């Protein structure tokens, strides 16, 4: 700018105009720079900062608000047994949801006005009440077991938008409710939401192995162990959404399919499992067993678990329910003690926190039930270590043979006790077994003999075999909750204080291992010396059946040699054929095994067990059956309330024999009869009616049958049993001569408690036939009939074959340090 005097001097118009024009030019140029360039510089910088520098931040913000992420549930895989029978499956069920607030909103207050057009609250309230009533009635019609009171109470919750009225509705019920909703137009506040439920078609069968699923997924058993395999991967549907939550299907949509869970195929066989569970039930009832029991069945050559039963059991469909009556009783008996304790604790609390008696009672009940539930969910086979008792002697035998410290020719003298460092340890037979061979020592389950064998091995070697047989490690089975087992350390065992331990360990006492460790170690004794890792899951496969993962038997180590194993099998077979295990005898099957009775540290608490395998020359199956705590008839008594001597040989062995026979039958293992057995095998009666007595005699002799005659005459007029019926070999056929006519029916005599011969003749006298089972063909006088298939006094058709179960009293009870 120029100053005023200059301007004044510029009188010339042209000059002024030119000046003015220059001024406009300069000022415009200035504005041009400011507006055309200057203003844009901060804009570009700001734009850069936002869309380039802070892009990641904004991108994240954008993603957070613009995307809708809906998860799609994956179908949980099925669990099938070895034959493909479904043991656990998932299905869609429905939950019924009510929104009480919306229910009220559905009744328009404008429809309820009085004459002046003012809202009539009372009428509206009544209309709402009617609607509620209508729904309650409708639902009650579909589900008569509905708790009306609680339903009505929940309908009253006026501020609630989400009340789950019913859960786990199955399709037919859901359909009925759907129709109800449609008919009454209640979809606005009453609706079904899908959910899934786990079904266990076999109910309680193998419940501890299968476990169950709760709201958080697999909680116990295989369901928990294979949670990752079974549950699959939930899918996701990611879509864009508008600010008002409408879905936008555009290029930002992303669909991740749900990957369904894999199906598991088990080594477990539901049939064998049911045999195992039935035998447990049977034994528990027969011996008045208080703490249940377990029964493990394994393929000794692979470690595949064929059955794993544990009692008490539960129904995984209703896993919180305590179904076992013994367990219920036990839980009930715990309540007062818990209650007393709670009451004492309660008294300590300040007054305002104290609970009422009723509340305490309730709490005590809840705690007792919770404990009982834990008990029923536990799998005894791997989570409850027990004293293996005499069954452990088989392992000591194998170790001793392997180490060469004993041989079949060695003899052991048993005076009825053994002195260890001045302490007297008794044999189960107080008067002593006397001089016996190695095999006899095993047959007799002689404690002193085994203590001598233990001494020969020495503590170090003995402990080596503890380790080799896997007693100090988990078996690695694919089930959760496995315990370690042995809690003796090598230090202790080989020390001076541990000296007594070596003696007691020699006959399987004073230490605990898990049943699974025991059966696997025993398997290695008889299968050629191989210790396998047990397993329950054979394979995992997808929906198309393609196998994703297959379990091969895992050999952990060879413990003893093939030859040692062979020698052990031979000796163990004689335990059943001639020794303490002969109640496990089953005609036609060569069963080997070892009995066990272990007294726990608790008084009068015995665990009776039997470890059996068959066929003895080529074991296909090994069974460990145990009953925990048969109730003694009186405190300190060796007899159960049901009159059975409390020992593995008298209780577990016959049951195990029965279940082994069932399993072998099921597995189609061919029977091999010895000569004596063949004689007793069923034969088909020939047609002798119409023949002379002499002809009849020859025909019957061909079949190994004897006869007696009734009436006078030469010609047989009729016969009992009729021609072509099956009777045990050696039975006496009744031939009716002349006018003599057989009775139609007769009363069955009582044979329980009789010896084999006495029972046989008693039945045959009455016109029946006896099929004996339960003990070897060598029926000594000690063998007594335990039960008969048709009870005494019942009427049966003449000629009926009565099954009689024999058992032999064996002395293999617990004996230890006095």
């Amino acid at each position, binding site marked *: 700018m120029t100053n005023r005097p200059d301007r004044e001097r510029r009188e010339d118009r042209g000059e002024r105009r030119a000046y003015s024009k220059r*001024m406009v030019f300069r000022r415009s*140029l200035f504005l*041009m720079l400011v*507006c*055309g360039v200057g203003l844009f510089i901060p804009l570009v910088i700001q734009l850069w900062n936002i*869309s380039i520098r802070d892009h990641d931040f904004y991108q994240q913000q*954008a993603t957070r608000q*613009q995307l809708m992420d809906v998860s799609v549930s994956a179908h949980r895989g099925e669990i099938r047994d070895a034959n493909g029978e479904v043991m656990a499956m998932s299905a869609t069920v429905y939950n019924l949801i009510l929104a009480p607030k919306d229910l009220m909103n559905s009744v328009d207050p404008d429809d309820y006005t009085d004459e002046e057009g003012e809202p009539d609250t009372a009428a509206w309230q009544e209309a709402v009440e009617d609607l509620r009533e209508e729904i309650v009635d409708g639902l009650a019609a579909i589900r008569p077991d509905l708790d009306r009171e609680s339903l009505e109470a929940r309908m009253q919750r006026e501020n609630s938008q989400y009340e789950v009225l019913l859960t786990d509705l199955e399709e037919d019920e859901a359909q009925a409710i759907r129709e109800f909703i449609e008919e009454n137009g209640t979809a606005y506040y009453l609706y079904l939401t899908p959910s899934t439920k786990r079904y266990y078609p076999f109910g309680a069968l193998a419940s501890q192995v299968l476990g169950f699923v709760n709201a958080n997924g697999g909680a116990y058993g295989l369901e928990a162990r294979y949670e990752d395999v079974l549950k699959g991967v939930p899918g996701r549907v990611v879509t864009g959404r*508008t600010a008002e939550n409408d879905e936008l299907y555009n290029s930002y949509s992303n669909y991740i399919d749900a990957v369904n869970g894999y199906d598991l195929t088990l080594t477990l066989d539901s049939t064998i499992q049911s045999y195992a569970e039935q035998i447990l039930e049977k034994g528990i009832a027969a011996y008045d067993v208080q703490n249940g029991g377990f029964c493990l069945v394994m393929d000794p050559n692979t470690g595949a678990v064929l059955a794993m039963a544990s009692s008490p059991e539960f129904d995984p469909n209703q896993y919180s329910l305590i179904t076992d009556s013994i367990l219920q009783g036990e839980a009930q008996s715990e309540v007062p003690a818990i209650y007393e304790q709670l009451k004492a604790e309660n008294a300590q609390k300040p007054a305002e926190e104290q609970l009422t008696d009723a509340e305490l009672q309730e709490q005590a009940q809840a705690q007792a039930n919770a404990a009982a539930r834990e008990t029923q969910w536990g799998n005894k086979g791997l989570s409850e270590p027990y004293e293996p008792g005499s069954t452990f002697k088989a392992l000591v035998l194998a170790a001793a043979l392997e180490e060469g410290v004993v041989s079949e020719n060695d003899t052991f003298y048993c005076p009825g006790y053994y002195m260890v460092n001045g302490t007297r340890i008794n044999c189960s037979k107080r008067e002593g077994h006397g001089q016996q061979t190695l095999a006899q020592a095993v047959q007799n389950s002689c404690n002193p003999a085994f203590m001598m064998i233990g001494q020969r091995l020495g503590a170090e070697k003995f402990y080596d075999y503890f380790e080799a047989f896997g007693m100090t490690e988990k078996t690695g089975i694919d089930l959760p909750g496995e315990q370690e087992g042995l809690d003796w350390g090598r230090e202790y065992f080989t020390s001076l204080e541990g000296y007594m331990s070596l003696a007691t360990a020699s006959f399987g006492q004073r230490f605990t291992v898990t049943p699974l460790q025991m059966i696997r170690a025993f398997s290695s004794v008889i299968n050629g010396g191989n210790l396998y890792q047990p397993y329950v899951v054979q394979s995992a496969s997808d929906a198309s059946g393609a196998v994703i993962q297959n379990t091969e038997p895992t050999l952990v180590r060879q413990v003893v040699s093939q030859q040692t194993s062979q020698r052990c099998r031979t000796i163990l077979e004689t335990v059943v054929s001639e020794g303490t295990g002969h109640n496990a005898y089953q005609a036609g099957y060569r069963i080997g095994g070892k009995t066990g009775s272990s007294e726990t540290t608790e008084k009068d608490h015995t665990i009776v067990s039997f470890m059996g395998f068959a066929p003895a020359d080529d074991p296909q199956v090994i069974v460990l059956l145990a009953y925990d705590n048969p109730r003694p008839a009186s405190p300190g008594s060796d007899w159960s309330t049901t009159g059975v001597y409390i020992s593995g040989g008298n209780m577990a062995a016959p049951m195990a024999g029965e279940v082994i026979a069932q399993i072998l039958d099921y597995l189609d293992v061919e029977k091999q009869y010895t000569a004596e057995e063949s004689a007793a095998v069923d034969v088909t009666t020939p047609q002798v009616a119409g023949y002379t007595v002499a002809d009849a005699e020859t025909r019957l002799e061909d079949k190994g049958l004897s006869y007696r005659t009734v009436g006078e005459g030469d010609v047989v007029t009729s016969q009992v049993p009729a021609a072509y019926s099956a009777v045990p070999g050696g039975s006496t056929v009744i031939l009716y001569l002349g006018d003599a006519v057989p009775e139609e029916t007769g009363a069955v005599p009582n044979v329980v408690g009789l010896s084999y011969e006495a029972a046989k003749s008693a039945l045959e006298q009455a016109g029946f036939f006896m099929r004996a089972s339960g003990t070897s063909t060598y029926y000594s006088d000690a063998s007594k009939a335990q039960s008969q298939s048709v009870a005494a006094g019942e009427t049966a058709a003449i000629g009926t074959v009565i099954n009689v179960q024999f058992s032999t009293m064996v002395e293999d009870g617990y004996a230890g340090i006095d």
Partner: protein
Amino acid sequence: MARKPKRDLTVEEQLARGPMDLPFLMLVLLLLGIGLIMMFSASYATAYYKDGDPLVYITRQAMFGGVGVLAMYVVSKINYQTFRWMALPAMVGSIVLLVLVHTPLGVVHNGARRWLNLGIEFQPSEFAKIAVILFFAARLCKRDTQRHKRYKNRTFFGRTYNFFDRIGLIELLPYAVVLGLVAGLVVTQPHLSGTLLILAGGASVLFAAGIHWGWFAAGGGIVGALAAALIYFTPYMTARINLWQDPWSFRQGDGYQTVQSLIAMGSGGLLGRGLGNSMQKMLYIPEPENDFVFPIVVEELGFVGGLVVLVLFALLILRGYWLALHARDRFGALTIVGIISLLAVQVFLNIGVVTNLIPNTGISLPFFSYGGTALMIQLAEMGMVLSISRQIPAPKND
């Protein structure tokens, strides 16, 4: 009216038939095209979800755009010298219309009385903007020939008058009165952003005409002080400033629009999500078709797309000033300066707001924002620039 043969034309008329400035025209059409496409994209979701017809905004806008281009052409054909005498009636007319807004003829939308219903609804302030520019340009171009009244220095009045005349206050007074009147009428509608633009347009013409720096400095100082006082003493303005400083703290409330705008631009990145793929237009940004088209541009076309739009605007503005520099006379130059400065300020305020560079004022983006009358007037203004460009003498060496 039959077209006169060239030989019958006066020099003036011949000049008015010169070629219009093609670069300027191209830039206008380019921005208009991009603007329509982006407005369509930005309005699509709102139109679809709220109005049920995705084409509802674009049809109207395209129609007005078409009419606007026609208006631009027609205006460009007018010899701009006729604007000189039209300036005064336009100014008077605008003031009358603005007064009418405050009568029952005015229409209220969203609590603001900005519209006038004379058969069709429109904002008189839009006309006032251009009327002020034309009026100022027409008067100020004769500045050098204006006689200065002189009083004797002997009287007090004379001395004072002469003093005021010397410092330029006397000259400035009529402009101040007119500007004050118009601004007063607009600001009471209330229409703050309109007032701001009218002031900016008027001021740019005054500035270019050579009014002393000091007046602008003084004016700026007063406005600044007033604004500071306003911000400091009124809670409403304080809140507004806080909002500007940290919109994230108010993201669920008043800061929502700004935050959504920033998210849109930020998520665009370098190259954007692709044309039509904006997510933020899915009802996140309220009314993206109005003031917030630019964030959608950046979200869809990225930093690069936003930069292109800014560069096009800058080129248009530079070319506009270039035309002003070469205009045949000062009236032309000042008119262009007014129109282009108005445009520049509007672009700056809009993009400054959406990028949160400055506090929210609510100014639309020329050629991009939805609004029929505004677009038409904008294009007519461009037509004026083109009309002036016709009379630029060809370079000597050509």
